[in-house]
């Protein structure tokens, strides 16, 4: 055990560094693509913008996923596959019954709120990886958006946005705006605005009145993402409020940050007093108590 102590500490530092670098890479990529305003179309193409978009966002997402997975307890790890399956199945269902919204991040937001931003980020990243593996590889470049949504849901929970029913849609609105901003360079520089029929038509309309491609995909995103996230966050808060509080409070993150408000403080449990049972050894705490009986012989009773 003593030998495994230092590596564990070292790994913690390593994971933090990976997450920090990942976040910096994503933010730098976004700022370069938006503020740098690459000499768009100078050569009939974007110059390095597409390259920076795909490498920066993918690298950042991978670093965050790798850094977070080691931090998560097994209960959370076991929760993530189910959450991803909820994302994918409900997302497909929403498309198949013709809803105009995506509804593909319910699981990500649930995990973010219950288990924190790191868990939300991992769920988001792997949702797009698996969406890419099972339905369409086009989801892969958008992994960074899902990471951001998971992180934002986690911080929304931490800041108490799930304590009141009406606060969750507000958190959804903010998350939706950020998601639109983050994903618009991907839509513009990697897909040329052509991420789907309906979206393409909206982008065309903004282009027709003279906007740049990035501005057009941003406006298009702002028309769909905030609405989607307001509805998704509302669905999530309804589900969470319907759950018995003992389910919700099983998550250490929920307890630590009072995600659903203060739980009433309970007194220390008291034991029923019986006499003649196992002598007076009762109430000896196990922590640090190694005085277990060592006679080694079974004592079957009649």
């Amino acid at each position, binding site marked *: 055990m003593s030998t495994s102590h230092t590596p564990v500490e070292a790994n913690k530092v390593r994971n933090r560094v990976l997450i920090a670098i990942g976040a910096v890479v994503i933010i730098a990529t976004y700022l370069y693509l938006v503020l740098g305003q690459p000499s768009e179309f100078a050569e009939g193409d974007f110059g390095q913008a597409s*390259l920076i978009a795909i490498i920066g966002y993918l690298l950042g997402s991978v670093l965050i996923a790798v850094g977070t997975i080691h931090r998560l307890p097994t209960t959370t790890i076991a929760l993530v596959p189910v959450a991803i399956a*909820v994302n994918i199945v409900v997302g497909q*269902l929403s498309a198949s019954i013709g809803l105009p919204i995506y509804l593909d991040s319910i699981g990500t937001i649930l995990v973010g709120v219950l288990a924190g931003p790191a868990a939300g980020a991992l769920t988001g990243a792997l949702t797009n990886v698996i969406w*890419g*593996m099972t339905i369409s590889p086009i989801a892969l470049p958008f992994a960074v958006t899902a990471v951001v949504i998971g992180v934002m849901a986690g911080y929304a929970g931490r800041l108490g946005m799930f304590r009141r029913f009406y606060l969750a849609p507000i958190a959804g609105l903010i998350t939706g705006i950020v998601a639109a901003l983050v994903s618009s360079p991907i839509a513009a520089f990697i897909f040329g605005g052509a991420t789907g029929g309906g979206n*393409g038509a909206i982008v065309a309309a903004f282009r027709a009145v003279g906007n740049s491609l990035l501005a057009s995909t941003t406006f298009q995103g702002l028309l769909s993402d905030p609405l989607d996230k307001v509805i998704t966050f509302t669905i999530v808060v309804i*589900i969470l409020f319907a759950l018995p509080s003992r389910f919700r409070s099983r998550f250490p993150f929920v307890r630590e940050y009072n995600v659903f408000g203060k739980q009433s403080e309970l007194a220390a449990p008291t034991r029923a007093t019986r006499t003649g049972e196992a002598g007076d050894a009762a109430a000896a705490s196990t922590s640090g108590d190694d005085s277990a009986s060592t006679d080694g012989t079974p004592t079957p009773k009649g």
Partner: protein
Amino acid sequence: MTTTLYEDRESAIHRLNPVTKLVAMLSIIIIVFAVQIWWVALGIVVFIVVPAAVVSGTGGRLLSLSLKLLLPILIVLVLLQGLFFPEGTTVLAEFGPARVTVEGLMFALGIGSRIAALVLCSLVLLLTTNPALLMTSLTEKGMSPKMSYVISSTLQIIPAFQTRAQSILLAQQARGLRLKGNPLRRAGAILPLVSPLVLGMFTDVEERSTAMEARGFSSPATHTSFVVVPDPVGQKIARWLLIAVAVASVVLSLLGVFK
């Protein structure tokens, strides 16, 4: 019972180490985005990606999947950039606010060839690579077993979830759920579908994590692997070469060589 696109066949491409295929896919995507010359991207598709699919016996699947996944995007791209490209100066035709420009069409060609390379390359990897072996070989190369667990487990529970979602949907429809009306009402209709799925996730997950812990899931011991994926030296060298070419293309691109 997996949901991936994998096609179980015997071929030289199938037999490649999954990590080799993954590195090849990522390298090709990076090269295509770094070089930014449309005929390079199309050349890679025509002379590398498509032949690989044909050799592996997945050419038919690749064709049908491209028609489904890629063609719609390319059509939208050509319409969007071909008709609405305000920066274009060489006008070929004009329809009210829409102007067909040479620059717009060239732009669509540049972007379209890269999207085609990205999508087709990923599809060939998925069609020819057993996801279980991909996870095993990535774990051998140092990926966390937890990552492998999450991805493998998700791939296998999706079909069960789809079945459950379908049966819940049918049950709700039988009880009068309407999937018509305005979007907000339809979104409301999703709620009774999602709640049972989520409740299920709470009840099972804790038990499953206990069982996994009891089987040493977070043991500090060095993980060993039951399945061994062959990884010949030739492929190791090929991977490093691919990575070197990809890095070189990025460096050259940033230096402005391809302009």
